[in-house]
């Protein structure tokens, strides 16, 4: 646990016309140097918001960080002022967003966008920054980098744009990269290229990576450790091997059963989780997953199960783990 980034009891709320929306309900996780950690969950589980909070990018209002600590390299990011955060954001922590189409500025050249952070944070001159930009584009596997620098985003394909985003994220040699669904908008063959590139560069440069995704296949292939999120809470935390070998929360089990697999024949049993995700403006007292859970008891509907250790580096927030494991064995 811990090391480079440590998040403790983070609570983020959004004020909406329908009431207060509990986006993140007290989550804690850590990222060690050089490690790839995945946040997995469906839409509305709070995975993106918790990452935006790290960078101080939660839109306020309507959003509000209610409580918690985010420690990065020993400093509490939440108690820093805006100026100090700017010295870290883009310099030590950078972000790769989901939509390569909308996260680049359409009216600025690639050179301008790629060199901005380096000139600002590293104090490089225009020509030094340009030289480094060429290096970076080479590193992310773009052909003809000199010409690319003069181009504008609309002249590049989706995969190329995402490569530019990666180059930008790496430009100041950060310690941590947060990638929010980095390949969801891309085709499968390009997705594989981009994810392998990110993994390779992180391992080679010793950068930590937080990868936010809904794709359990991507997690299995790339992550070292996984946090499964549901309705703003982490319901299970484990190493990737342990999570898939012995899933220990009913939601994780349901999710793994819902996923269709390429290595299973047609007609393989499909056992979806019944019901819908909860309304985040009206979360009840108990476990948020209880209404959809086959193992739920009266206690589950009254109390929120805490995230407790069930094995070394494996934690689950469920009162009925014994029943769950009995069910799996049967």
């Amino acid at each position, binding site marked *: 646990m811990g090391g480079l980034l440590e998040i403790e009891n983070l609570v983020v709320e959004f004020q909406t016309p329908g009431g207060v929306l509990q986006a993140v309900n007290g989550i804690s996780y850590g990222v060690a140097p050089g490690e790839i950690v995945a946040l997995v969950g*469906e*839409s509305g589980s709070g995975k993106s918001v918790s990452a935006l909070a790290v960078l101080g990018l939660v839109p306020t209002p309507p959003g509000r960080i209610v409580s918690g600590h985010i420690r990065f390299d020993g400093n509490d990011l939440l108690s820093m002022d805006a100026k100090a955060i700017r010295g870290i954001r883009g310099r030590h922590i950078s972000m790769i967003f989901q939509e390569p189409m909308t996260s680049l500025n359409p009216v600025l050249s690639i050179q301008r966008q790629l060199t901005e952070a380096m000139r600002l944070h590293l104090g490089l001159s225009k020509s030094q920054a340009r030289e480094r930009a060429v290096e970076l584009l080479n590193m992310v596997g773009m052909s003809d980098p000199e010409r690319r620098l003069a181009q504008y985003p609309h002249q590049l*394909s989706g*995969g*190329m744009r995402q490569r530019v985003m990666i180059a930008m994220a790496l430009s100041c040699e950060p310690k941590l990269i947060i990638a929010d669904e980095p390949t969801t908008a891309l*085709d*499968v*063959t*390009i*997705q*594989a*290229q981009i994810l*392998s590139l990110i993994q390779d560069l992180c391992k080679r440069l010793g950068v930590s990576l937080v990868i936010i995704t*809904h*794709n*359990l*296949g*991507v*997690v*299995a*292939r*790339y992550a070292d450790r996984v946090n499964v999120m549901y309705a703003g809470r982490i319901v299970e935390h484990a190493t*990737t*091997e342990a999570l*898939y*070998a012995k899933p220990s929360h009913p939601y994780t089990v*349901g*999710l*793994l*059963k*819902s*996923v*269709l*697999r*390429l*290595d*299973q*024949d*047609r*007609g*393989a*049993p*499909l*056992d*979806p*989780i*019944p019901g*819908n*995700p909860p309304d985040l403006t009206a979360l009840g007292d108990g476990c948020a997953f209880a209404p959809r859970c086959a193992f739920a008891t009266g206690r589950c509907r009254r109390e929120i199960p805490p995230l407790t250790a069930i094995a070394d580096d494996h934690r689950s927030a469920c009162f009925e783990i014994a029943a769950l494991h009995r069910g799996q064995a049967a």
Partner: protein
Amino acid sequence: MSGAAPTMADQALASGEPTPLLEVRNLRTYFPVRKGIVFTRTVGELRAVDGVSFTIGRGETLGLVGESGCGKTTIGRCILKLEQPSGGNIVFDGHDITEQDGARMFEYRRRVQSIFQDPYSSLNPRMCVGDIISEPLLIHHIEADFIARANRVKTLLDTCGLPRDLADRYPHEMSGGQRQRVGIARALALRPDFVICDEAVSALDVSIQAQIIRLLEDLRDEFGLTYLFISHDLSVVRHICHRVAVMYLGKLVEIGDCDAIFRDPRHPYTQALLTAVPVPDPAIEKGRTHEYIGGEVPSPINPPPGCVFHPRCAQAEAACKVNIPAMEALPDGRQIACPVVRRKLDA
């Protein structure tokens, strides 16, 4: 085939050569590329679909897979007559519908329905669910009586796993999964024979996606539906389809039995596509090759000569740059468009 009980389609397939419900012959759809604002002129053509042929038997589900821009949606739109093909024929139940229009198309449009990708934009936000589902009944003069129509809507809501009181609600009050169920209920209202599912589950979360796939499978068995299942998600296609057709840049590269193709892909592009999809199991992932094809899909306005896949293909030979490969049958019944692989298999 796995241990699952045989479906109606399986039985139909087992009973010998089924008559195809839909036959697509050498379908071509070219879009003009125009330049200029005042003096508009055509400077080229975009070959969205370039000579595609396939058949779909009754009760069968054909998966159409490929990456964005490969022309899979255009094929669906041509079958729905939302696009007029530049060439080729579409034969439905023995009738060529390519040139037909007007009153004759009325019955065709009843029998062929579609389910779209985006459950947010494919439902009219100003109509309540009951009206959305009953509109096709009204247009096709089925259930002219108001009460009968309302009952039919209730039955359809039941069939699609929605509560009956949803009939008076509006799309914005529902979740994505519920909206997609409304879209399915609307498609089923006219008791169609053939349903085109264009990325019908792609916009949904994993747990909801599994629910909708279950529903589509149940409906297929209950009503004997035939699906053309268009998707970029290979795992979904693997699960639901009997046969699969793989497209690349407007052309078919491989078509055949779904289990056979996924177990043992032959065309280099199909192989590349399957390698790129991660399996949700780290134990298996460790043992898999992580060599991915480089490069990107070329522009369909200016496609490469010869085989369109040759610039990204590891097995390409000199001849691939010149000759356009034709679809050839393999001994196991599938067809592929790759003479190199074909020759290696014969040797």
